[in-house]
């Protein structure tokens, strides 16, 4: 096998509108997908921040205690 030469990609991202137009996605569906994506990553960030908080700062009292 000859040595691989990676492909260098130049330039930045296409805008969301350009991508939607290129794919033929309607404005309504585009907004819906934007909302779903934002919601998912916001939940992910919240989940991560919960577990990244030091133990002292957590409000463990909300959990039911084992008896």
């Amino acid at each position: 096998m000859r040595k691989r030469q990676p492909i260098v990609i130049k330039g930045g991202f296409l805008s969301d509108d350009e991508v939607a137009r290129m794919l033929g996605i309607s404005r309504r569906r585009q907004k819906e997908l934007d909302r779903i994506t934002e919601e998912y990553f916001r939940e992910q960030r919240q989940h991560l921040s919960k577990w990244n908080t030091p133990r002292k700062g957590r409000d463990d009292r909300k959990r039911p205690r084992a008896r």
Partner: protein
Amino acid sequence: MIANGLVPVEPPGKAVFLNFPYDQQFVPLYLAYIAGVCSYQLIPRVALEVPGGQRRLDRIIELILGCRYSFHDLSRVELDLRRPRTPRMNMPFELGLTVMASYQNPKEHTWCVFEKDYRRVLKSLGDLAGSDVYSHGGRPKGVLRQIANALVLENRRPEMKQLLAVHQYLTKLLPRTLQARGAKSCYEASVFKDLVYAAQRAVKTVLGT
């Protein structure tokens, strides 16, 4: 280029033609290709977008010629389980079309071959000896790793955990998209387009751009 009712492929420098099998077992890798390609600021295009009919082949060729790059996955070139049991030749056929097109315009098209194990290609398609083959081991992480080997961005390098985050998101999104589109398979054009749009949106969120 909007002839034959195709969605225009523009700008051509950003489009990647993906050539892979449309079967249920391939779904995790299908999502990995979308996540990986979008992470490198490119837009995947597939033959799924081309409607059937007499001129389907013309339209596929037109789509390939409209893309600056193409990735060909030959990992499932095998006998189809459904009767009559025939080998699956669409992927090598479309690779052949691409190779010919790139010989005519070497500066306008670059192709890459992906396989589960590169030794399989040496056996099944010996004519490719001496060409680059990216072995992904049949796993989504392998596909993402090999896309990262095949592509380099000028200004940054996406981390594996970022690529995996986008792939994980697409995996979560898929059932919802199937329901929203009333689709039975993820290999329907409308589902593919939703996944591509959502992937490039997710990449921007993950990278904070």
